[in-house]
Structure formats: structure tokens, C-alpha cells
């Protein structure tokens, strides 16, 4: 499908597939990124055709390095793509600040996929503001067809301007699907050659540097002015509605689809116009002035922050003499919620209130009945670790060791599946959770607070991919500064949360080629941290090791808990043990253990048979890790090794 030559063929494509196809149609040569929902499928799709399409596709160690890798390709004259989730742009932003000054050569596109509503994130950060502070063009596709078409165009635009172009997607485009008509695809070869022998000031042939800064900055702003000219007539900015609408909705991205739906749902087509913007920074002023002059009421629909709203207001202010008084509705006046993702209902509510059109989404008694019935009969599904997940076993031991230590110790968390230990699934073990690598940085700080009377032991956790991404510098910091802390690396052999992408510790790359793996234990030792490794499924051994390391107050220590993810290709569908409950030995509620098995350990494969008042194994769900046999004080849970 990605390499189909069937031009004009219509397919149902996921937004991320449409973006990947757009890059292929543009003749991309190099693509790099760091996994993160909702962006990961773009690189995965490109990796799946890398060999056939003559692409180099890389999962880089972090977003900053991925942008550098992609930039090198551009400097050598190739077309390159860099993909990340919203907060990845923060990580890459230092390099980005300098890249935009030096400019690019081969077309280079940065695609951040934002996650309004934090459906799969611990933030709802906005990447669009980076386009403004970095002074680069920003594109926002409004549907699936545009996701493909605008990606292709972004490469051309980048080459025309000589600078990187940002194309921003969101969860509801990236992780949604719609009909897409394929364009022309011609395989490209691509010849890489880095020219640096020209004039120092020549952006095409000289060295790629940012100095002299004011001159380069001036050039960069000139590129932005040229972008404005192109944006004024771009077909990706479209208006639909009456010539003089009572209300003008200005919108972009998935919010365009919500806005269109809202206008139809209210039957307000005759009174409302929609200006859908595909080029959202810099704004094309003539186009906007024309539409602002035709309506006196404006509603801006976007997510998450009032990016368009504020920029349009500045433009209206600058043109107040010709435009006159306009009333603005959007995030700032509360017409649209200022947090969380948008949906058709939010827009319906705003339009219905501005135009005084009544709308009933659900009869009041139905809504009330539904709420009560779902609350009483449809018990909440708390997120939990998969059956057989090594994290459940790791946190069981960490939690017990900290409790036995008795000094009110705590865990600084990090980003991955294991962040869920803020929940009962991980025994609520994590007490701080922020960005990639921050758990260990925070622990490094906590570990220096002894002189202020802090006596609590400090533990941080991070996954294997996170270790390489950003925890390594924090560990160096902790070792060098003599911070009293323990880093527990939850090594499950892959970037599990986002779909098992490889990282530097895995002996293969994005396309399955063999590569040398970089050893975590070796790194930690060479940094100078006391380093041990344990199997988290060995509950007794791990607990003992943890207790010793928690009590050892000699600077930064590391414990690697190594056990592959239950969903990893090597483990999937393969049970190590057959597990069963001996109902004669299970003492049920009378045991005195407060049902450690089903009330505390809470593995989905170990269930409570209310009729018999005993624990039992759900054979379909149990992954056969056998860990629960070690936690039952009555020895009622039995495991027997499955013979291969």
C-alpha cells in the first residue's frame, strides 16, 4: 500500500499511514524519530518499506539526536523526515533553535504528533508554539487526505525556503482513519554529498553554521516572509459558507472536522462560515483580513492553547481601522474549554450559544439514568499491568523492601508502562512522575538533602529505553556529586509502551538489521555506580538485593531488574509455568493475608471465585510467569514448569 503505484486509488488509511505515504510520494530518503504515542506508526510504516524504497529509517536514542540525524541528511542534499510526540519537540528544541538559523538544504520536515487530552501522555503540551518562537512555517492538515498531501508539499516548501518546516498532527488524525486518494509515486535514488567549500555566507555551499547570527537571523525572517506570500494562495486554506456569515469559525486540524459537524448538527449552514487554515504560522494576513471583514462575530476552534486565537487577535488589532469592531469567541472568553481535547459537542455548544440555536444532545432523564446505571452496573476499568508483566513483580519487591526498611522511603518515577505504578496496579509505589529521565534527576537532588535532615531512602526507576534517552546524564550527575540514591532499571528489552520498538540495547534496528547492542550494566559500571542485576521473577532474591542496596548509603547505586516484557515477541503466547490454585490449601477470606493474591497483587489472570470463596486461575488470561506462587503465604498457588 505504501509503495503502490496505483495513482488515484482510494484507500482507508490511518492518519500516520497517510503521512508516511506523503513522505514516500515526496521521495524522502532518511527518516528518524523516537517512539511516542500517537506518532510511532509513521516511522514504523516507513521502516516496513525501507529496503524496497531505498530509505534509511532510524529509531534514534532521543528526539534531539533524531533531529540531528535527519538534519545531516538534509545538509547532504537529501530529503529527510523527523517524527516525535509533542514533548519530544522540547527535547529537540535546543538543536532546533540553531538549525533554523543555519537553514537546511534537502527538504526537511519535522512532524510532531500532539496528544490533546493526554490520551496517552502525562502532559498535553503544544508543539505549535515552537513554530512561532523558532520562526519556521507551520502546517496543520485538516483531514486524512491532507495529512498525505500536505506532508508531500512540506518537503517542497522546505526546499523552496531553505529551512525546516513543521507539520503538526494530533491523536485524532494520527490514530484515526479515513479515505485517502493516492498520488504519484516514483522511486528515488538520492545522492548524498555535503558541500562546505563555498563562501562562508553561502547557505547552499558554505559550512552550515549559525554565525554571523544577526545576518542569518535576518535571512531566516526573510524565509518566513516568503512563506507568507505562498500561504496567501495555498489551497490548504479553504472557506466554506455564505459570503457574509453571521458567525465565522476559524479552525485548523481535527477541529475543522468537529466544526463542520457542529454547523451541520445545528442546521446553521446559512448563517455560519468556516475558514479552515492549513498554514497556521505565519498567518497569511490578506486572506484573514478578507474573511474577518465579512463577519462581525468570530469563533476560533483549536486545541489545546489559544494559538490561532491570539495571533488572529493581533492581526485584527493591527487592522482595526479597516476591520472595525469584531467580537471574538474561543478559549479566552470560555466559549471553548481551555483544557483537554475538543470534540463535536464542545463546538456545538459554543455555536448554539453564540447563535441562540437550541440543541439537545440527550434528554435529561436519559442522561441521568445512563450515568447511574453505568456507575452501578459497569465497574470502572482501572489501568493495570498485563498478566505476566515483570513490572508487577518488580514493584511488589520494591514496595516490600521499602516497607521493611521502615524509613519512609519512596520512588521517583519515569515514563513508560511502569509509570502506572502511581496506581494500585503498581501498589502506588511511585511518588513523583514527570518527563523522560526526570525520575533519576529528581532522585539525584533528593539524595543530596541529608544535610537538611532528610533521612528517607531515595529510589528512582526507569525503563531500558528511557535509560538511554535521558536517564544516563542524570545518573552521571548522581555518581559525580555523590548523591545517596538507588536507580532501579526496569529492563524489559524493548520500548514496550509504544509497541516494542528497538533501542540501543537491542541488537537490531528499526528495519530488523543486526546491530551491536550497547550494554546498560557496562555503562553503569564504567560511570562508577555500584551495579547489580537481578531477575524480578525471583521475588526472594530481588527483595534481598533491594534491601541491601537501599540500606547501603554510599552514593549512587544501580539495580537492573531484567526480564522481557510479557508481550515481547520472544515471550508471547509461551507459558513458562502452568499455574493452579489448590483449593484445599487456599484458606480464602479466613487466611489472614487480606487476600494478598487478589486484593493486593491484582494480576488479571488470578481471579476470585466468589461462590467458592477461593482464589482461582483464569487459564485464558494467565501468562504463566509463576510469580504469584511466591506471594501466597499458604502455598496454595502451585506452578509446574511447562515442558517444551
Amino acid at each position, binding site marked *: 500500500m505504501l509503495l503502490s503505484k496505483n495513482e488515484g486509488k*482510494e*484507500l*482507508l488509511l490511518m492518519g500516520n499511514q497517510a503521512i508516511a505515504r506523503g513522505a514516500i510520494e515526496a521521495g524522502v530518503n532518511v527518516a528518524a524519530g523516537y517512539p511516542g*504515542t*500517537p506518532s510511532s506508526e509513521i516511522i514504523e510504516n516507513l521502516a516496513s518499506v525501507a529496503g524496497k524504497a531505498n530509505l534509511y529509517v532510524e529509531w534514534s536514542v532521543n528526539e534531539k539526536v533524531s533531529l540531528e540525524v535527519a538534519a545531516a541528511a538534509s545538509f547532504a542534499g537529501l530529503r529527510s523526515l523527523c517524527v516525535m510526540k509533542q514533548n519530544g519537540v522540547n527535547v529537540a528544541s535546543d538543536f532546533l533553535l540553531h538549525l533554523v538559523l543555519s537553514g537546511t538544504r534537502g527538504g526537511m520536515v519535522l512532524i510532531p504528533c500532539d496528544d490533546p487530552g493526554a*490520551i*496517552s501522555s502525562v502532559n498535553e503540551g503544544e508543539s505549535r508554539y515552537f513554530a512561532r518562537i523558532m520562526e519556521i512555517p507551520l502546517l496543520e492538515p485538516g*483531514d*486524512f487526505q491532507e495529512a498525505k498531501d500536505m506532508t508531500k508539499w512540506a518537503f517542497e516548501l522546505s526546499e523552496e525556503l531553505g529551512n525546516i518546516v513543521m507539520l503538526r498532527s494530533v491523536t*485524532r*488524525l494520527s*490514530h*484515526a*482513519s*479515513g*479515505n485517502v486518494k493516492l498520488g504519484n509515486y516514483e522511486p528515488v535514488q538520492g545522492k548524498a554529498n555535503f558541500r562546505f567549500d563555498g563562501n562562508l555566507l553561502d547557505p547552499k555551499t558554505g559550512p552550515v553554521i549559525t554565525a554571523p547570527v544577526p545576518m542569518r537571523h535576518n535571512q531566516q525572517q526573510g524565509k518566513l516572509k516568503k512563506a507568507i506570500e505562498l500561504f496567501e494562495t495555498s489551497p490548504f486554506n479553504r472557506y466554506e459558507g455564505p459570503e457574509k456569515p453571521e458567525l465565522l469559525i476559524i479552525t485548523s486540524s*481535527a477541529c475543522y*472536522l*468537529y466544526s*463542520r*459537524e457542529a454547523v451541520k*448538527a445545528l442546521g446553521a449552514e446559512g448563517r455560519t462560515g468556516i475558514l479552515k487554515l492549513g498554514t497556521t504560522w505565519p498567518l497569511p494576513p490578506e486572506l484573514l483580513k478578507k474573511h474577518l471583514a465579512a463577519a462581525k462575530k468570530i469563533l476560533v476552534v483549536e486545541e489545546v492553547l489559544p494559538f490561532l486565537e491570539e495571533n488572529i487577535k493581533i492581526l485584527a488589532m493591527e487592522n482595526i481601522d479597516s476591520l472595525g469592531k469584531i467580537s471574538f469567541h474561543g478559549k479566552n472568553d470560555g466559549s471553548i474549554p481551555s483544557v483537554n481535547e475538543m*470534540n*463535536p*459537542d464542545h463546538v*456545538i455548544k459554543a455555536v448554539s450559544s453564540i447563535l441562540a440555536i437550541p440543541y439537545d*444532545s*440527550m434528554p435529561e432523564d*436519559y*442522561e441521568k*439514568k*445512563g*450515568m447511574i*446505571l*453505568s456507575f452501578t*452496573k*459497569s*465497574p*470502572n*476499568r*482501572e*489501568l*493495570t*499491568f*498485563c498478566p505476566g508483566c515483570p513490572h508487577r513483580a518488580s514493584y511488589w519487591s520494591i514496595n516490600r523492601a521499602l516497607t521493611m526498611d521502615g524509613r519512609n522511603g519512596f520512588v521517583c518515577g519515569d515514563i513508560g508502562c511502569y509509570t*502506572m505504578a502511581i496506581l*494500585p*496496579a503498581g501498589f502506588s509505589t511511585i511518588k513523583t512522575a514527570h518527563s523522560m529521565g526526570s525520575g533519576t534527576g529528581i532522585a539525584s537532588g533528593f539524595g543530596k538533602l541529608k544535610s537538611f535532615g532528610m533521612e528517607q531512602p531515595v529510589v528512582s526507576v526507569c525503563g531500558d529505553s528511557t535509560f538511554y534517552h535521558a536517564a544516563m546524564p542524570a545518573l552521571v550527575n548522581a555518581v559525580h556529586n555523590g548523591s545517596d540514591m538507588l536507580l532501579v532499571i526496569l529492563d524489559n528489552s524493548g520500548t514496550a*509502551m509504544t509497541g516494542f520498538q528497538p533501542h540501543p540495547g537491542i541488537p537490531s534496528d528499526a528495519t530488523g538489521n543486526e546491530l551491536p547492542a550497547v550494554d546498560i550494566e557496562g555503562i553503569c559500571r564504567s560511570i562508577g555506580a555500584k551495579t547489580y542485576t537481578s531477575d524480578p521473577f525471583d521475588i526472594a532474591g530481588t527483595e534481598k538485593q533491594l534491601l541491601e542496596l537501599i540500606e547501603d548509603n554510599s552514593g549512587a547505586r544501580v539495580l537492573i531488574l531484567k526480564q522481557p516484557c510479557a508481550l515481547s515477541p520472544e515471550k508471547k503466547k509461551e507459558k513458562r509455568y502452568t499455574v493452579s490454585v489448590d483449593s484445599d490449601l487456599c484458606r480464602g477470606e479466613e487466611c489472614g493475608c487480606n*487476600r494478598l493474591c*487478589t*486484593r493486593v497483587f*491484582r494480576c*488479571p489472570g*488470578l*481471579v*476470585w471465585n*466468589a461462590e467458592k470463596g477461593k482464589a482461582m486461575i483464569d487459564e*485464558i*488470561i494467565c501468562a504463566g510467569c509463576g510469580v504469584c506462587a511466591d506471594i501466597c503465604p499458604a502455598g496454595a498457588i502451585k506452578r509446574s514448569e511447562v515442558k517444551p
Partner: protein
Amino acid sequence: MIDPFNIIITGVGGQGNVLAARMLGNTLAKSGYHVTIGETFGASQRGGSVMSHLRVSKESAWSPQIPKGRAHLIIALEPIESLRVLAAYGNRDVVVISNTRPIYPVGVISGDFAYPSLPELNSAMGELCDDKRFINATEEALSLGNPILGNVIMVGAAAGTGLLSIEDSSFESVISENVPASKVKINMEAYRKGKEMVKAPIKF
């Protein structure tokens, strides 16, 4: 057909919700419709409730989220998930097809919450919609040899309602593109089984 026709496929992370939505979506796209699918996955895959919204139209793409109270068909791969979706997107006229095999939330395993019996669930749903059909999709799939065929049975059941004009040949061509040739027959059998089962749902 109402345009756009709004379908919600709901279930629990790991049940194959996303694949089922794509299977149905691709079948409808092959039958000549514009289809928009909005998916919720990622963190919610880890034992949480998962939902896909399908908008089916002869005209154009629609938003990947269905407005509140505007579903026309709910397909529940797990029984109590149908009630959760009804509360947010339901109306008296919506048709609900639900599998009967429960997946217990950890809160039920721990004893913090009770899981309703099927008759209890049936009558709760009856307070919110008139047409609800329970079928033993997982059990039937097990007798066909693989529990994952349950999703194909549920897609067949959706076709069997006659609410959408789905050609069997469109489904067959989608299945042929996605499973090895040797598995096409059993998948078609599951699909046809679903079509039949939805016409004779479980009686309470």
C-alpha cells in the same frame, strides 16, 4: 441508511478492538462508503476500556468522534462495556450487539466492585435502548478453534442486522488481504455464523 451512520466498537484493551474496527471499516470502504474511524489506544490498552468510532457516509469524511447521544449501532466485545457506551452515546433507537464473555476489571477481582449477571445487565440496558442482542461470540469462536474469531463473529453480526448494506464479497476480500489463504475459510465461517446468530440472540 441514516447518513452518517455512527458505529461504536467497544471492548477491553487487548481484545482486538482496533483490528475489528479496521476490518469493518475496510469492508464498508470496499462497499463504496466514506469511512472515518477514530481510535482510542495507547495507555488504555493496558486493561482499560477501548473504543473505536466509525462514521459511515455516502457523502464525505466525518469527525473521528461521534457526538454525545448519536450512536446508531454499538458492538460490544465485552458485555459491561456496552452499558458504559450507552450512557455516553446512546439513545432509545440505538441497536446494541453484545458478546457475553466477561473480562473482569481488577476492581472486581479485588472485590471492590460487583460484576452484574447477564440478565441484570440486559435489564439495565433495556432502560436505555429497545433493541439489544446478546450473542455467545467467544464460546462460538472457541468451538471454531480460536477465541480471536469472536471479533469476526461480531462483525458478521453487525452485517446480519441489515442496518448497513455490506456485501459478503467485500468482507471476504478484506479478510483475504489480512490473513493467510489457509485461514480465509474459517474466518468466512465465523462471519456467516455471526450473521445468523444476531438473528436469534439469547433470550432472557
